[in-house]
């Protein structure tokens, strides 16, 4: 028996729930040295910007306990080069590609969405809201429900109806549910969480920040409890909205934790740096865990930890009727 691992981002079906996390899978070519990109639920690109970006100076990384700080600064070749050299390669290999976009203004996000509109091979658009809003003194969009909603609404408007728009949220807020709700009200078809909270490390030998940029984004297992909490809270408040959960997933157990909290798909980021085979491995482990628990459909487990205390896990029978 193999479990039915299909999942849906809005109406788009993915063969399995394991994605790469934005910015962690390169262009796809690097991972393809280790395993097929079309075996992924979807490949999520690093956040694409309008113009080429050189990113931040080095050092760009620092290791922290069970975590990684990075300040890459969205280095990339810009959307034109992406469409010319990267997306076609992914499409040829049959990968479903979620294109992450990043910008400094609503206009820039909108322009990116327009540029992607109608391009074949774009399975979904993920809006990286953790970019500084240059028109609001660099305040990150994701920290402000209305700014986030504005970006989402304009990207949604510029994107063909059959391409889902995923809003990617940050945990660095007082109320992640409020931002999630604003994004859904703004037209997000799905939500992704969590982007990296802002952290910092100081080198006690040089007595200076370990990263050239000072602060960086914290990822890896250290942040998993924050990710599980965000997914849990948002799924509780918006049970109908598909969630791509991520943050510190290194094993099938970690992925299952996010699924039980309410994620219908799970992205793997930092773990890829440690294990380039992490995606197929996590998928295999997740499938084994589901089977060991008597589930033959992923969909039946999404959000299952929310059932009232003492309630039995739903039986096969009522699961037949349930849908995502």
């Amino acid at each position, binding site marked *: 028996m193999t479990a039915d691992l299909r999942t849906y981002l809005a109406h788009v079906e993915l063969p399995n729930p394991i994605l790469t996390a934005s*910015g*962690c*899978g*390169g262009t796809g*070519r*690097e*991972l*393809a*040295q*280790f*395993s*097929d990109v079309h075996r992924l639920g979807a490949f999520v690109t*690093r956040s694409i910007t309008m*113009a*080429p*970006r*050189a*990113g*931040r*100076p*080095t*050092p*760009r*990384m*620092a*290791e922290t*306990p*069970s*975590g*990684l700080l*990075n300040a*890459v600064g969205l*280095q*990339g*070749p*810009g959307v034109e*080069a992406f469409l010319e050299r990267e997306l076609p390669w992914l499409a040829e*290999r049959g990968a479903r590609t979620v294109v992450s976009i990043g910008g400094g203004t609503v206009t820039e996000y909108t322009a990116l969405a327009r540029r992607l509109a109608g391009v074949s091979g774009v399975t979904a658009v993920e809006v990286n809201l953790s970019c500084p809003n240059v028109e609001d003194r660099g305040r990150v969009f994701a920290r402000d429900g209305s700014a986030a909603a504005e970006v989402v609404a304009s990207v949604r408007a510029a994107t063909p109806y059959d391409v889902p728009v995923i809003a990617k949220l940050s945990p660095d807020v007082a109320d992640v549910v409020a931002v999630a709700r604003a994004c859904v009200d703004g037209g997000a078809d799905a939500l992704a969480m969590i982007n990296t909270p802002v952290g910092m490390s100081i080198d006690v030998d040089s007595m200076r920040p370990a990263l*050239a940029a000072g602060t960086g984004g914290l990822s*890896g*297992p250290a942040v998993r409890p924050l990710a599980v909490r965000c997914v849990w809270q948002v799924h509780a408040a918006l049970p109908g909205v598909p969630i791509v959960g991520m943050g510190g997933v290194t094993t099938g157990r970690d992925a299952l934790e996010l699924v039980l909290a309410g994620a219908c798909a799970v992205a793997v980021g*930092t773990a*890829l*740096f*440690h*294990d*380039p*085979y992490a995606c197929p491995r996590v998928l295999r482990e997740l499938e084994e865990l589901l089977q060991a628990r008597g589930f033959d459909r992923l969909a039946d487990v999404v959000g299952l930890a929310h059932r009232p205390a003492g309630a039995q896990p739903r039986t096969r029978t009522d699961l037949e009727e349930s849908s995502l």
Partner: protein
Amino acid sequence: MSREDLVAGSPVQVTGTVLTTRRVDAYHALTVVAPGIADRFRPGHFVTVAVGGRNTSMLTRRAFTVHDVKPDYGGTVELVFGVRGAGTAWLADLRVRDTLDLVGPLGRPFPLPRDPCTCVLVGDEHGAAALFALGDALQQRGCRVDFVLGAPSADRVFGALRARRMGETTTLTTEDGSLGMRGRVTDVLPGVIADARADVVYACGPMETLRGVTAVSAEFGIPVQVAVEERMACGIGVCMTCVVPVIGDDGVTRMVRACADGPVFRGERVRFDDVGTIPFDALGAPGGRHA
């Protein structure tokens, strides 16, 4: 995967058994059974290793040059390292029969000259570890090989004996004068190049050393290949943390990955003065040129 992705150097992940451990002055050397990696190895390649064991709090792999490969047990690789922080301390504690998780071979190896010529190989500190497999390959092509090895002190000069056996000449430097000439590799390099009438220089070591070696080579008008070290989170080209400013064939400076586009570069292409910055004229620099 399509054929074209299966390039010769394509890396693999291997859980290898530690065959031998030994101390070499200030360094530790580990030989690990890793057939898939040994097979594909070319001089200049590196591997990354997982450190800390199961349930470790250390997420990132550590990168090490492959010092040597041997055909024993289907293929072994040898790493040479100094203890620097918690990861290398853990490696230094490994015992024979422990296992080590490696990914490799990684990076672009040293390009070799088509025709026999004279090569100066410069190694500063553990950088010297990369040079012996290279020296072998060069000699197999009929090249003459001269070594310049340096370090702050005698115990940190790696491979002097082997260099003396292999090299036409071997020049050693230490900053404290405890071995060879007092000074740095760049102090003696002009003399070595001139004496050997060298055609090409290969260098491994800290950025500062590579900068100096590149400057000296430029003065002599001979090509130099340098293997750089930058902090790496992945080693396989996906994370973009290991970038250095490098001038491309088109004259444009790009922030390129030391792990996947390097670690070996033509010295004059690396903007050593700008390492740790985004040069204002780099592609995509803030306010800089956009292609």
